[in-house]
């Protein structure tokens, strides 16, 4: 299940002295071959100013297990959010993460739907299933109200960002860069800003089958 832009679409952020740039921040992410890159997480932080915390953490985020895969592959949630992990498969899954942002293990029997985890630290959480090695997904827990992942065309539009200098960062699990992340500083005028990233992705290795 996707929850796009649920907390990213912020039309007016209370407490900010600078007026919001109506045009927002529009980012396009493409590979070196010109093809759009989907599932890249784009975040905006204010430069030289304190970035406000995300809106109230959501509780309706979901990473389901269906056909021996996680859905979605990448999920963006604000710090403090709860994510449900329903198992829609007829087999068991042992979902885990050893990431610094969140270590957990969920033992999910077939068709069990009521297990959830709270993500209270920002950072990337890599998910796996100890029973099915081929299952991989990522949750990016963000500490900014302006974050979303790129769509199939490689686009993200983040509204509600105050005008001024901002830092735009992108993260993708297979991005060839330190920390799988790139960033740049851009000037956000009243009319908004459009920018793009050209990135190189590595192909992840095949994960083994099961007996």
């Amino acid at each position, binding site marked *: 299940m996707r929850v796009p832009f649920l907390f990213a679409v912020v039309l007016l952020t209370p407490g900010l002295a600078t007026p919001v740039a109506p045009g927002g921040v529009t980012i396009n992410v493409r590979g070196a071959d010109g093809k759009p890159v989907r599932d890249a997480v784009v975040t905006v932080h204010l430069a030289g100013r304190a970035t406000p915390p995300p809106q109230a953490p959501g509780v309706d985020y979901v990473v389901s297990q269906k056909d021996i895969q996680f859905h979605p592959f990448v999920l963006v949630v604000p710090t403090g959010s709860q994510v449900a992990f329903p198992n829609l498969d*007829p*087999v*068991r899954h*042992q979902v*885990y993460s*050893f990431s610094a942002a969140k*270590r957990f*293990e969920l*033992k999910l*029997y*077939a068709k*069990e739907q009521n297990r959830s985890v709270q993500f209270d630290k920002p950072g990337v959480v890599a998910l796996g299933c*100890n*029973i099915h*090695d081929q299952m991989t997904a990522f949750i990016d827990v963000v500490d900014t109200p302006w974050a979303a992942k790129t769509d199939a065309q490689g686009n993200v539009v983040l509204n509600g960002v105050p005008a001024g200098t901002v830092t735009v960062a992108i993260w993708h699990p297979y991005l060839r860069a330190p920390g799988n992340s790139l960033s740049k500083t851009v000037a956000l005028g009243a009319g908004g800003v459009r920018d793009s990233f050209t990135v190189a992705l*590595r*192909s*992840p*290795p*095949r*994960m*083994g*089958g099961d*007996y």
Partner: protein
Amino acid sequence: MLVAFAAALPARAQDSGGLFSPDSWAVAGDVRVTAGDGEASWLDGGYGKTRFGGSEPDRGWRVEPRLVEGNLIWQPRFGWAVSGTLVATAQQGQEHPVDLSEAFLTWKPLVGGRVKPSVRAGLFWPPVSLEHSGPEWRVTETITPSAINSWIGDEVKLGGVEANLAVTLGGHRLTGSFALFGLNDTSGTLLAFRGWALHDEKVVAFGLQPLPPLTGFIHNIQAPETRPVIEIDNRFGWYGKLGWSPMRAFELQLFHYDNRGDPEAMTPTQQWGWRTRFTNIGALIDLGHIRLRAQAMGGRTEMGFVKNGRIWVDTDFHSAFLLMTRLFDRGSVSARVEAFDTNGRGSRLGSEGSEQGWALTAAARREIGPHLSLLGEVLHVESDRAARATIGLAPHQPQTLVQLGLRVHL
């Protein structure tokens, strides 16, 4: 057959966490209509390379509906790190109505870091085939596996302990396996006396596999059937496997097997120890909708005593195939080309045990719901084997088998 299995299901108890929970059980079955021509199948006492041969005695087309196979699969979990796999199989032509196919325990602890260990122990096939999957060891995209994996399926099943490590390092995945095993001392018997074959009849724990007509000295010392799962010499064999995947689109595997059999050991029922070793290289290229799989195998098997500097049976064997699959949303179309040979140079089984052959396979698979799939396949194989003269056949024999199959998985 399937009805009998379904009736045997122990009530699919609503026990979500126990050994007998519903997700621990599965039933798989396979029914077909087959049309084959050519010589009698090796399973019917001939030298035929396919599972179902032509009509006798004219070797013309024979069309028959068949209940081919049923499997009852139990995969309990003992906690979350230990799981079991137990598969009971009923196949057409099997010695016992129901037999044991695989039975093993797997230990796979949840550990952090880049290295993931696991161990399995029990009765299983070694990890050679790129064409099979699942506990019932079904062929995924075709009906008939390649000659290489047909042989693994019909003779190379073992009882052992296998340790595995998977390491993810800088975008590469390296895997390594090492196993010590027994219960596979007759491995090589079918390759030497029958040669290669293309079929999906699988060896079971307590069953025998037929051999083609044996003559002369061999007839006097070897039972007319081979028992693939048996320990004769009380020696451990071993196998090792290395895998490397630098990207999702590519994986390379290297496998070596040596059963360290004592070729002079025999049982009172005339089952012999065979010293068999082989190396298999496997490669998989996955381009999304196009998937290429290839394997190449070479090996040698020996049996008996040395006479005038030559052991009774000493046969080299080689085979290779390339399988190309075009995947669709609910099915696939596949084509496979392969070649095989054996080279007999023993003092009691010489060039009459040699053969050369090739095969072409075209297959289509269509999912028709979550529990049913329909498969169609045309297999053509041609081979030369001098030993066919012992039953009045020309050494060169072509054979075609057309199959339409319905697979059920519940």
